[in-house]
């Protein structure tokens, strides 16, 4: 089986009924898609198959001959975030982070069609669970990214307290 993942072509040896999630995580060591439920119910394993968001835990390898897969690792790097990643970072849309890769991939597919409203984003991402319940910030991020707001610059400029002068000792409790 030939499978292209994040632009790299792989010869894949897993048996044909192996779910794509397992191929990615256990054979190719690509771990951003998470095994949250392995029955299509949480969204944490969502990847793009030929540009469309899919639950990788539900896709048998056999149906994917020659397909092109994209995961969060392929979107951007910490130094050069993609627009969706930058928006998630800027809007604090990741809390524990376990659902984040799945949300990112679904959002990446969604914003290809242009700006979306919060309602449209909520409908499109309705199958994804964020158990930290960070949905407000996730919708903020997705709508911002779809509007082309380039959040990356602002994040880079705002790295919090830096340097010795900024480190103020914490005063004593009654001090």
């Amino acid at each position, binding site marked *: 089986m030939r499978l292209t993942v994040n632009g790299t072509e792989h010869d894949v040896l897993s048996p044909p009924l192996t779910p794509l999630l397992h191929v990615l995580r256990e054979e190719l060591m690509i771990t951003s898609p998470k095994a949250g439920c392995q029955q299509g119910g949480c969204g944490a394993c969502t990847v793009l198959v030929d540009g469309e968001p899919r639950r990788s835990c539900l896709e048998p390898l*056999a149906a994917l001959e020659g397909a092109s897969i994209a995961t969060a690792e392929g979107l951007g790097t910490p130094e050069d975030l993609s627009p969706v990643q930058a928006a998630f970072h800027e809007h604090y849309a990741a809390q524990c982070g376990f659902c984040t890769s799945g949300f990112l991939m679904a959002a990446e597919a969604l914003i290809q069609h242009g700006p979306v409203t919060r309602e449209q984003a909520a409908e499109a991402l309705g199958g994804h669970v964020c158990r930290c319940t960070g949905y407000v910030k996730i919708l903020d991020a997705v709508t911002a990214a779809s509007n082309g707001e380039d959040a990356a610059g602002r994040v880079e400029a705002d790295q919090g307290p830096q340097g010795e002068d900024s480190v103020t000792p914490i005063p004593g409790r009654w001090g």
Partner: protein
Amino acid sequence: MAGSVDAAEVIVAQSPQEAVEAFGDGGMTLVGGGTIVVPEITHGRLDPGRTLVLGRAGLDGVRRDGSRTTIGATTRLSELEDAPDPLGIAVRHVADREVRGQATLGGNLCAPPGVESPRGDLQAALIALGADVRSTGAGGQRTDDAEAFVGAGDRDRLVLDVSFPDPEAGARQAVRRPHAHAYTVLSVCVARTAGAVRVAVSGAGPHGARCPSVERAFAETADPEAAAARVLDDVTPHDDALASAWYRSRTLPVLVRRALAEL
């Protein structure tokens, strides 16, 4: 991965002809979109054995022929969101965007009842539309109406396509799902085709069912309320983890009345 996956004998059909030949008299595990079968294998509830994968068999696509629509068995649900109601609206309420992009019409039609979950939420829509189901398997090809196909419970068939005449009107009423991943607890589909109204229910039993008593009462009285009152003559709701028979029995006439009133 599951040892049963290592042992499975898998055929990936590359054409409709190949799929029909490989299926032969049946007795195989069929993988359409995979949304039901794959997790069953993952969690050890299904040993696939001989398996036919249909994803590349070319059994998909929607064809219009005069006033009739024919839908290939492996057509993804995402391509049917604009189908005539009640099918279109029912499709839009199946799972979520990703799952609809993967799940197939044939898979939904043939879905076995799940553990405490009323699968097959499109069965009522297809029954209400008076759809014909063309399938192959033991005894060769045949065409059944959706009501007979679903009711027979014979799942050892390879569905080729589903077709139905354009309805004049259609409607669907359902218990609202709490989340995109919840199966629809109960839904009622109605359609008027060539002047006749068909009524069907999903979620009240192991498979979708037609409601002839309701249809007769509606034909005689044209009164949604009077017709809806007959629905428990046609189906006997069951208990499962999602809802009790008591709840379903009280909700069902309301849904039938509302759906008929919408026509």
